[in-house]
């Protein structure tokens, strides 16, 4: 059956996504709480931006894990597909980092 290994991949991706969501939610909730207490504090920025970066990184990590898993399963068509998506996301991150003011 070809369905079995994919069900396993789905579980792994689910765990990754749930971890990403929990970590970013905790950082954002703490950041927002301190922001509402005192908007001027430096700590707010670190927490809020940290939460946003974890949030944005989660889908990228999801694609990376998918690439690795499809390589392991030797499903080359889907290796190519996921690598193309990863390349495009990498391009976006590179453009973002270089345009940072």
């Amino acid at each position, binding site marked *: 059956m070809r*369905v079995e290994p*994919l*069900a396993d*991949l*789905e*579980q792994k*991706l*689910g*765990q990754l*996504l*749930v971890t*990403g*969501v929990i970590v*970013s*939610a905790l950082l*954002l*909730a703490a*950041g*927002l709480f301190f*922001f*509402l207490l005192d*908007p001027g504090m430096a700590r*707010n*920025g670190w927490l*809020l*931006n940290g*939460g*946003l970066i974890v*949030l*944005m990184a*989660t*889908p*990228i990590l*999801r*694609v990376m894990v*998918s690439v690795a898993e499809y390589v392991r399963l030797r499903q080359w068509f*889907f290796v190519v*597909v*996921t690598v*193309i*998506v990863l390349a*495009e*996301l990498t*391009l*976006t*991150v590179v*453009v*973002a*980092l270089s*345009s*940072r*003011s």
Partner: protein
Amino acid sequence: MIVITAAMVAVVMACGVVAGALGALLGLGGGVFLVPFLNAWFGIDFKTAAAISLVTVIATSSAVSAATTGRQLINLRLGMLLEVASAAGGVAAGFTITRLSDITLERGFAVATALIAILMLARLEHQNVIRDTAVDPGPLGGRFHDEESGGEVVYRVRRLPVALGVSFIAGNVSAAFGIGGGIFKVPVLNAWCGVPMRVAAATSSLMIGVTAVASVPIQYAHGYVKPPLAAAAVLGVLVGSRVGLWFGVRARSRWLKVLMAFVLTLVSLIYFRRSM
């Protein structure tokens, strides 16, 4: 310059709850509502509203997908294949935005959502499921346990080029409208491409995160994402998605399709009005 108050944070959080609930039910990011709302209600400029909305699309995607795994509703093969088209659409977005005016884009969006609403209603009775589990689902189809049919069912993916084309368009307008593109992908996958409603919604939920991430880091680097408002919206989305998931497992597919058609009609009216 936007002055962020506690009241504003509370309202944005409430909007996030609605967006998250719809996201969990229908596979949408909810950006189609959030952007016009932030823009009209608080006077937040469209680019900032779109950037905040895209961040919430990522949150909806991760939260809903994480909760949906293990039920065979997410079609990973189809989702990842369509992500290539939406990513390509994202690359071409700069080109589209410079060629078409905002008004043209908004009118196009209004017309497209209206047409999809009609399509959705016309195909309301199509279940897209094959009860005979001996049928081969094909390279992109799948099988899952369907409560409504009372057992395991099979579906096959049809008209793949249409699905790829729609994903390209969804990725292309994602940054401009601050949406993940589920509003286009879910109805088309369901009405034209043979994908059952729940599978279309779950697969779209997974895809919209990548669509949003294809542009949001650039907007973040330019300072369009206002962290406290984005945080409020994201936290709202996480609450809303739990509500949506609770209703989602209890709702009939037909009801979900009617809700989708209603949402499309509403969005169409919002953008028609904006483009006047």
